[in-house]
């Protein structure tokens, strides 16, 4: 346990753990100290000289990021001398900064703009022309570099050395000729390269994906969780005109610090895709035809009910999607119980993993499905289900998601789908494999609903609705609920708080949780279930 010390900032008493960075202590206390080079997850550099404060007993102004708090320290941040030092530092930073703001992607969330307006002098005393350097340099698959805009804070340099551990970037030359660039012949192509654009306080490093797309002040940011892998990095989704424009990482020290991988960041495209299934389809005369939601759900409930009466629930298998939320899958479990289904499985796509954030399981909620007790076994029951379908004891299938197409061998799956009598599919896309489906229901993406995901470590985290689906749209949870109401003659609604009460009652790992208690950074499951 670290010792705490008490210090005084502008007459205000603060307590802090000993040897913490003075700047961080002041920022945590809500005191606004301008800074560029300091980042809580990177080492101290001390190159921007903006966070200078006066500390009693020290002969000169000190950069607060590099001062460790000591007992009885007295700090002044609002004095004329401090303000003059900030103004001077800003003026030096602005000497060579181009007036690119109208075409710079960072404008609006640029720290140089903000601090220049708040602390700057609005006056430049140099007469020399601005330095000319490389602009729009293609330094990587996903990144652009503008050397003129760079203020040499070296955040990106430290990121590449300390976090991604690839070390592509450095500052060449000295003094007035200092220049951010890539080591000879290199490319900024590491798996976390776009994080450098996030931490860049100005627009020197820009993501190609967001380059000249939309002004940041129009973006509506909503807290959510990245759906791309089991890690569950906390993100903010930026929405404008009912479209996602970018995903940015959100700080959660228990999951992703302040970073996220490029692959997850650029994975939002499917939400905006024009190729998505936008209306439910029902098999009519040998082909799939688009129908109204009510008709499709009635057809699905009817088909499931008839199948249950003629073959029994045991002849029906279900493939549970690891992309749906805990609540939706819980409701799916209730529907399957009403149908008497015994064989359930889950297919999870696997891919590249690393030691940092990227996990092999490419689905956000695989752990949640397991914790809800919907699937069992090493391979989540997949082999058993496929075998039963091959043997013919399984005559109907309810497929959620299309991961099975990637996971199972194609000829084998094709043969199974060929023999199945009743196939109900709930998916984002219309795939040729599902041509024999009796009913095809469009699924809803992570950005179009509220709910929770459980990440690989058993942390339950909330996602939020950002994009409004069409007016009469039924989300996955509503589909399950309405099918259940049709089959079991219940009168349930898809109400998250009520479902959470049931989950907490029925599933021991979720016992201690409630939907309202899960805050911005999530809550871990009970240890007993882990």
């Amino acid at each position: 346990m670290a010792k705490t010390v008490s210090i005084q900032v502008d007459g205000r008493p603060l307590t802090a753990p000993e040897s913490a960075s003075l700047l961080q202590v002041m920022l945590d206390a809500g005191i606004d100290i301008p800074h560029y080079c300091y980042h809580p997850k990177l080492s101290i550099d001390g190159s921007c000289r903006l966070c200078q404060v006066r500390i009693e007993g020290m002969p000169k102004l000190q950069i607060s990021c590099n001062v460790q708090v000591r007992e009885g320290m007295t700090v002044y941040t609002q004095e004329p001398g401090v303000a003059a030092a900030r103004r001077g530092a800003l003026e030096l930073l602005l000497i060579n900064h181009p007036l690119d703001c109208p075409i710079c992607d960072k404008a609006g969330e640029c720290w140089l703009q903000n601090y220049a307006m708040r602390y700057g002098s609005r006056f430049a005393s140099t007469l020399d022309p601005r330095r000319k350097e490389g602009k729009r340099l293609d330094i990587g698959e996903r990144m652009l570099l503008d050397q003129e805009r760079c203020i040499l804070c070296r955040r990106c340099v430290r990121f590449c050395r300390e976090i991604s551990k690839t070390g592509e970037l450095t500052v060449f030359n000295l003094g007035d000729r200092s220049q951010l660039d890539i080591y000879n012949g290199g490319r900024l192509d590491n798996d976390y390269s776009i994080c450098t654009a996030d931490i860049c306080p100005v627009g020197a490093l820009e993501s190609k994906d967001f380059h000249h797309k939309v002004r940041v002040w129009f973006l509506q940011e909503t807290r959510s969780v990245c759906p791309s892998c089991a890690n569950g990095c906390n993100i903010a989704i930026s929405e404008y005109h009912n479209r996602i424009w970018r995903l940015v990482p959100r700080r959660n020290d228990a999951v992703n610090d302040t970073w996220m991988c490029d692959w997850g960041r650029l994975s939002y495209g499917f939400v905006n895709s024009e190729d998505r299934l936008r209306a439910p389809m029902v098999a009519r005369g040998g082909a799939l035809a688009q129908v109204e939601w009510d008709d499709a759900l009635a057809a699905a409930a009817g088909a499931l009910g008839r199948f249950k009466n003629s073959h029994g629930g045991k002849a029906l298998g279900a493939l549970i999607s690891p992309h749906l939320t805990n609540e939706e899958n819980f409701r799916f479990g209730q529907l399957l119980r009403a149908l008497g289904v015994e064989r359930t499985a889950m297919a999870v796509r696997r891919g590249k993993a690393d030691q940092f954030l990227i996990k092999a399981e490419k689905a956000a909620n695989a752990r949640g499905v397991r914790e809800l007790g919907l699937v069992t076994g090493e391979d989540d029951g997949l082999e058993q289900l496929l075998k039963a379908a091959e043997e013919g004891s399984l005559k109907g299938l309810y497929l959620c998601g299309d991961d099975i197409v990637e996971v199972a061998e194609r000829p084998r799956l094709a043969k199974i789908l060929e023999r199945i009598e009743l196939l109900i599919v709930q998916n984002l896309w219309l795939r040729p494999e599902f041509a024999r489906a009796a009913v095809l229901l469009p699924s809803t993406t992570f950005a179009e609903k509220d709910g929770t995901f459980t990440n690989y470590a058993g942390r339950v985290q909330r996602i939020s609705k950002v994009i409004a689906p069409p007016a009469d749209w039924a989300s996955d949870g509503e589909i399950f609920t309405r099918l259940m109401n049709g089959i079991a003659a219940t009168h349930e609604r898809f109400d998250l708080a009520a479902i959470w009460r049931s989950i907490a009652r029925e599933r021991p790992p979720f016992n201690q949780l409630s939907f309202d208690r899960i805050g911005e950074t999530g809550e871990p499951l009970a240890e007993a279930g882990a």
Partner: protein
Amino acid sequence: MAVRVITVARPAPGLARRKLWTSLFVGLAVVTAHFLRNLLKFASGGQDFTIHYPEQRLLQPPALRGMPVLVQMENGKERCVACGLCEWACPTNCITIFPGETANEVERYPEVFDIDMSRCMFCGLCEEACPEEAIVMSRQVEIACYSRAGSMWHKADLLVPQAQLKTRIDYLRHGYDR
């Protein structure tokens, strides 16, 4: 509670009535004089005072805020770099911009620049917000249309050569001391 009533004395109507009648006749006399003068001038082929819109048009002063247009440079390109400040400043949200990228030195241009003239209220805040002198209020006021779709002006319709907008641009530079 008792209501206190104050009786206000009205002025006698006589004098006011008399004034009304006199001014009515004076007014009629002025109108008649103008009418006769115009009639005589017109009959004798001389100048008349009426602007025969739409055959004739009055040249409005540069202070007039007509419909906002985009300034087209000599090379045919727009000055606009799609910075989005006018879109932000617009109180009626009538401007929609989506930027695009080119290989030119000025790398950014508006791929989509739409103004919904049925929403525009000619306040001129877009012009004031523009850092590039790229959107200005023109003298154009004839923007009637037959359908709602017709009130949506796209980039190609909005571009006006810089030379035609010179008076307004000069007025702005003078007015804002740019």
